[in-house]
C-alpha cells in the first residue's frame, strides 16, 4: 500500500518549515536511511531521511516551498509491485493521529502583537482601544517586521562592528551557526577569532570569559540554554557579579550571558526552567528578559555596552515570532525601564518575557467584558522599574503579576512585597501572582500545558482582584 511521506517536525518548537531541496525524484528507489530532502526550519537546515523502502511515486510539494506545515503530505512512496494508481489510495494512511495530536498540543501562539502605534502596524488584535505605548523610537520612524531571532543577531552584529573587543563564545555559535540560529552569519562576517566555538564545558568557558572581561574584552557568552548555566553558576555569581565590589571599584566584568531561558515545548524538566527569579537576587548583576523583537534588539545592544555583567534571558518560543523593529542606525533601549504595553484603568498586569503573551491575551479577553487592564512589560528584571509599577497601581489600585517561573521566591512575589511596602494604601485587593505550577516540568503534552501559567488563570486572577 502506498505511503504518504509527511513533513516532519524536526525540533520541539517547529510548526512549519521550508522544503529547501529534494534529493530524490519521482521514480527513484529509496531505502531506509536514504536522504530524501533538505528541510529548513527556524533553527537549521536538516536532512530528512527515508524510513521505509520503496519507489518515489509522486512528489506533492515542490522544492523551495515555504511554510509547509508539519504533517503535510510531501510525497508518496510506492511499495514493490505498486504503480502510480496506488497513489490515490494513500490517503487513508495520512491520519497518523499521534502526530496530529502532538501538533495540536504544541503551544498555539497568538498572532504576534505589533506595537499598535508604529506606522507599519497591521494591528491584528486591534479590537480593543489602541494601546498607547512608551515611545522607544521617534514617531514616524520606519519599521521592519523582524523576528526576535533576527533582532538578537542584528544587535550582536551591530555591536561587534562598533567595538572590536566584543566577541561571542559558546557551544555551536560558529560553524553550526548557533543551536537556535541566533548567531547565524556571524562567523562569516567576524571570523573564528570573534565567534568562538567552545567545547561543552560551561563552567570552564564561563570562567575564561570572566577572565577575558577582566582583561579588557567584552564577551558575550551564549548558553545553549540557561539550564546549562547552572554548571557555571559560581563563575557568574562569585566571579562576575561580585568582583567590582570586592575590588573597591577597580575592576569588574563587563559582559553578557545570554541564551534561551524557560520552557520551550516538550523538552522535560531539565530543559524547562525559568531563571529570572534566581538571577534577580544578585547585586552586581543586571537581568534582562525581553518580549518583543524591538526590545530584544534595543536591550541587547545596551546590554553589550553596559559596563556590568548582564544576564539576558531569551525564550525559544519567542525566537520565531515577528514584531516591528525601527529602522535606525543605532537603536537602543535603556536597561531598567519598563514599558507600558497597554494602557488601562481597572487593573495593572505586570509581566516580562513570554509572560507578556498571557498578559496581553488576558487583557484582550477582559476588554471584551469591559475590564480595561494596564499591562506593564518590565523588560529588565534587575534593576527593576518599580516606580512604573507603583505609578500604575496608584491609578488602578489592583495588581496581578504573570510569569512562567515557580511561585516560591518569584519575581511576582518581590513585586508584591514592594507594593505592600510602598503602595499599601493604594491597593484595593491583594496582589495575585500568576506563576508556573510548583512542579518540575512534565513531558506529557497535557501536563506541560497545565504546568505553565495560562491565560485563563490570568483572567481569573484579574476577576478576583477587581471583584468582577
Amino acid at each position: 500500500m502506498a505511503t504518504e511521506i509527511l513533513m516532519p517536525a524536526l525540533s520541539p518548537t517547529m510548526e512549519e518549515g521550508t522544503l529547501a531541496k529534494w534529493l530524490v525524484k519521482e521514480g527513484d528507489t529509496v531505502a531506509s536511511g536514504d536522504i530524501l530532502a533538505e528541510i529548513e526550519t527556524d533553527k537549521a537546515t536538516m536532512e530528512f531521511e527515508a524510513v521505509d523502502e520503496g519507489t518515489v511515486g509522486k512528489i506533492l510539494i515542490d522544492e523551495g516551498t515555504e511554510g509547509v506545515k508539519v504533517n503535510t503530505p510531501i510525497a508518496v512512496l510506492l511499495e514493490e509491485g505498486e504503480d502510480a494508481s496506488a497513489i490515490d489510495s494513500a490517503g487513508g494512511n495520512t491520519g497518523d493521529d499521534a502526530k496530529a495530536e502532538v501538533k495540536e498540543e504544541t503551544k498555539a501562539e497568538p498572532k504576534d502583537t505589533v506595537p499598535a502605534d508604529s506606522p507599519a502596524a497591521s494591528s491584528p488584535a486591534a479590537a480593543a482601544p489602541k494601546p498607547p505605548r512608551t515611545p522607544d523610537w521617534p514617531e514616524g520612524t520606519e519599521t521592519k517586521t523582524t523576528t526576535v531571532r533576527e533582532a538578537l543577531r542584528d544587535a550582536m552584529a551591530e555591536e561587534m562592528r562598533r567595538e572590536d573587543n566584543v566577541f561571542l563564545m559558546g557551544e555551536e555559535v560558529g560553524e553550526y551557526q548557533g543551536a537556535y540560529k541566533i548567531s547565524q552569519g556571524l562567523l562569516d562576517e567576524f571570523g573564528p577569532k570573534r565567534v568562538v566555538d567552545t567545547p561543552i564545558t560551561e563552567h570552564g568557558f564561563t570562567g575564561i570569559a570572566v577572565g577575558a572581561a577582566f582583561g579588557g574584552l567584552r564577551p558575550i557568552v551564549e548558553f545553549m540554554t540557561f539550564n546549562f548555566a547552572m554548571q557555571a553558576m559560581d563563575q557568574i555569581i562569585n566571579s562576575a557579579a561580585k568582583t567590582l565590589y570586592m575590588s573597591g571599584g577597580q575592576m569588574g566584568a563587563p559582559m553578557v550571558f545570554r541564551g534561551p531561558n524557560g520552557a520551550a515545548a516538550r523538552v522535560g524538566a531539565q530543559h524547562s526552567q525559568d531563571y529570572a527569579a534566581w538571577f534577580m537576587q544578585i547585586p552586581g548583576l543586571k537581568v534582562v528578559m525581553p518580549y518583543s523583537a524591538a526590545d530584544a534588539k534595543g536591550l541587547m545592544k545596551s546590554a553589550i555596552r553596559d559596563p556590568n555583567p548582564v544576564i539576558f534571558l531569551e525564550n525559544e518560543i519567542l525566537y520565531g515570532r515577528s514584531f516591528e523593529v525601527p529602522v535606525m542606525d543605532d537603536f537602543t533601549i535603556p536597561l531598567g525601564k519598563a514599558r507600558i504595553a497597554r494602557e488601562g484603568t481597572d487593573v495593572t498586569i505586570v509581566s516580562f518575557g513570554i509572560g507578556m503573551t498571557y498578559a496581553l491575551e488576558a487583557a484582550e479577553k477582559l476588554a471584551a467584558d469591559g475590564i480595561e487592564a494596564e499591562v506593564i512589560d518590565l523588560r529588565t528584571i534587575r534593576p527593576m522599574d518599580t516606580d512604573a509599577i507603583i505609578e500604575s497601581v496608584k491609578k488602578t489600585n489592583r495588581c496581578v503579576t504573570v510569569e512562567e517561573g515557580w511561585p516560591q521566591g518569584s519575581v511576582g512575589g518581590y513585586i508584591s512585597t514592594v507594593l505592600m511596602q510602598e503602595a499599601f494604601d493604594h491597593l484595593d485587593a491583594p496582589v495575585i501572582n500568576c506563576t508556573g505550577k510548583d512542579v518540575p516540568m512534565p513531558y506529557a503534552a497535557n501536563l506541560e500545558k497545565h504546568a505553565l501559567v495560562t491565560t485563563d488563570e490570568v483572567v481569573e486572577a484579574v476577576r478576583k482582584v477587581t471583584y468582577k
Partner: protein
Amino acid sequence: MATRKTSDTGPAKGSNPAPKGSNIPADELKHYYREMLLIRRFEEKAGQLYGMGLIGGFCHLYIGQEAVVVGLEAAAEEGDKRVTSYRDHGHMLACGMDPKGVMAELTGREGGYSKGKGGSMHMFSKEKHFYGGHGIVGAQVPIGAGLAFADKYLENGRVTFSYFGDGAANQGQVYETYNMAQLWDLPVVFVIENNQYAMGTSVQRSTKSPSLWERGAAYGIKGEEVDGMDVLAVKEAGERAVKHCREGKGPYILEIKTYRYRGHSMSDPAKYRSREEVQKMREERDPIEQIRQVLLSGQHATEDDLKAIDKEIKEIVNESAEFSKESPEPALEELWTDIYAKEAPQEA
C-alpha cells in the same frame, strides 16, 4: 611529551662543583632575599595583628612558600598578569603592591586596596596587573586562562600566571581550562603551588595520581616539577615556562613543591601533620635561609649587609602595620558603592 624534572633533592648546601648562585649578580640574590623576607615578616605581623583582633575572618598566611612567587616574579615582565586564590598576600607583595594597602585591607580600612570591602582574600591591583584574590577553590584557574585569552586576542605579548594549590588541582574546572588553554594556545602558566595539604588533607589522601603536573599531558600541555623551596630553581623554571608561552606555544604547567609552615587559616588544629615534619622543613629547606647561605658562602653579602636588609624590612612592615591601624574604617556610604559600574572600565 617532553618534560623535565628539576632537582628537588634538598637544601642548597649540596655538593655542586661551582657554588650555587655564583653566576648570579649579588644584587639579584639580595633582591630575592629581601623580597622573601618582606613576605615572611609581613605575614608574621599579620598573624600578630590577627591575634590582637585587628584582622578578622579568614587569614591565610604564606609563610614557607615565599620562594614560589618571588622566583616567578623574577621571570615575569612588565605587563604580565597574575591571579591566585585566597592565600594571596605573598603574590601581592611580590608583584610590587604597597604593603600598606595590603595590610590596611586586612584590617578592613579605607586605605586598603579594596577600601576595606574585599578583605584578606579579595584584593586587586589594576596597576600591578594583579587580578585577585579569589575565594572559591579553583575558580581563579579559568579566570587566569581568560586573562590570557584577552592578551592573545589583543596580541600584546603578555603572559598570565594562574596560581592554584594542590587542593584546587582536583577541581573539574581546572581540567576544563587545561583543555581550552591548549586548544587555543593561550599564553598562561598554570602554577600549582603544591604545599602538600589541601586544608588538612594531604595530597596522598586526595589522589592516587603520582604527580599533579603530569595530568596536563592528557591535554598535551608541557610541564615540570620544581623545587619550590629554592628561589633560583623556581626562577629558572619560570623563565622556561614564560618563554614557552611568549613564543605562542600555549600553556605550561609548573608544579612547585613547597610547604606551608602555618595552619591553613588562623584556627587550624594542626592534627593532620606532626610538629616534627614542620620543624624539619623549616630547619632543612627554608627558602630564605637557603638564599642567605648562598649570599654568605659565595661572599655576595656580609652579615652586616643582610642585617641592614632585615632592618629595612622590619621598618616597612611596621609602617604598614601602623598605617593599617590608623587608616579609618570605610565610610558607611561605601556599603552602597561599587555594586554597579557606571562607565566601562579601562584596561591599564
